[in-house]
């Protein structure tokens, strides 16, 4: 056993998970994904809106992460995200509504829409739906 990584995910409003023992962590960093294994060097990374993958009990658990930071040090990974949700916490209906709203705004070709904002909202909704989808797949098994 090469040791474990203790993962903590915190948002401004709550602690999503605390000291979850994982074998590996995949971070959604700004220019792709980054795998973290035990004994990783100390690091602070900027995260994008994406899926954080935590390997424990022989499988990867996806967590929706809305941008933020990750700090790695001494086999601890601390994620500070604007918002983060585990699959079972995601409000699928709300995410779906948000996706449609964002898509409609992007389609509407008006000058006065904030494209960057709509795209960010769309991205968040897609990440949430994807993470929630994993849950549905696992349930079928």
């Amino acid at each position: 056993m090469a040791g474990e990584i203790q993962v903590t995910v915190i948002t401004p409003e709550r602690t999503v998970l605390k000291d979850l023992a994982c074998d590996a962590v995949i971070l959604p960093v700004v220019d792709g994904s980054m795998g973290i294994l035990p004994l990783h060097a100390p690091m602070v990374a900027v995260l994008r809106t994406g899926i954080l993958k935590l390997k424990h009990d022989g499988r990867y658990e996806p967590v929706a992460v809305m941008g933020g930071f990750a700090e790695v040090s001494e086999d601890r990974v601390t994620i500070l995200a604007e918002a983060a949700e585990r699959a079972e916490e995601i409000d699928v209906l709300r995410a779906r509504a948000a996706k449609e709203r964002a898509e409609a705004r992007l389609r509407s070709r008006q000058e006065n829409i904030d494209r960057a904002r709509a795209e960010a909202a769309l991205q968040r909704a897609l990440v949430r739906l994807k993470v929630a989808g994993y849950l549905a797949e696992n349930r079928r098994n």
Partner: protein
Amino acid sequence: MAENKKAILRRRKAVQATQKITRAMKMVAAAKLRRAQDRVLGARPYARELARMLGRLVAAGAGKEHPLLRPREVDDPKVAYVVISADRGLAGSYNVNIIRAAQEALRRETRTVRLITIGRKARDFFVKRGVKPLREWVYLGEEARWPVAKEIVGELMQLYLSGEVDEVRILYTEFINPVTQRPTEIQLLPLPAPAEAEAGSLVDYIYEPSPEAVLERLVPRYVETVFFQTMLEAKASEHGARMTAMGNATDNATELIAKLTLQYNRARQAAITKEISEIVGGAEALK
């Protein structure tokens, strides 16, 4: 005498009705206070970790020049005071205290002042006195929410970065415990860098993609967090103050009801005594 008795009864009924309201308000405030307290505690780990990260970066020498961190040297600097009050009254001295602290701060300030208000009470107070807030937010709800706080603080940062104001200070009520709250003033911008005092903090970190990029995003998040914390504390204080005030009002009502009941019984007894003595007197006269 009968008139007097009726009046006392009517009065007692009125006090009882008021007590029902104050008791309900106290219980509602207590429930909201619990939630608000949980939220204050829930937000602390994030603020703490972020402060640690930022402190380490600043200690490593990054960010001296970050626009949100660097104090500004200008002629005639403008200072924005953000006053956080409640939307509703019946919270004891909560609004009075924070507004008084704001007046005091504004009077002491020698630089040019800009006022920003959060909550109806502070806005109404200053508008009534002819001070028009530069920005105002009202009816933000019974709970401090992150997206709302983010929007407000975003605008504050905008004001600061555009040079419309050169310093931003927050006046809010610090939550000490459910019965004690204290008006407090902090400087939000330029951000006083958090001190990194921890031993072993000199470990070399890899910054991904770069220290500058991390700092670039970290500083605004930290400003948001500091501001969010003040909003959370202000909310918890408001509910605490309201709970205490309504608790006192309920106790006072209980006392008043007891006093009125006593008065009523005395009046009743006096009436009976008088009636008996009249009857006795009448019987005597017939003999």
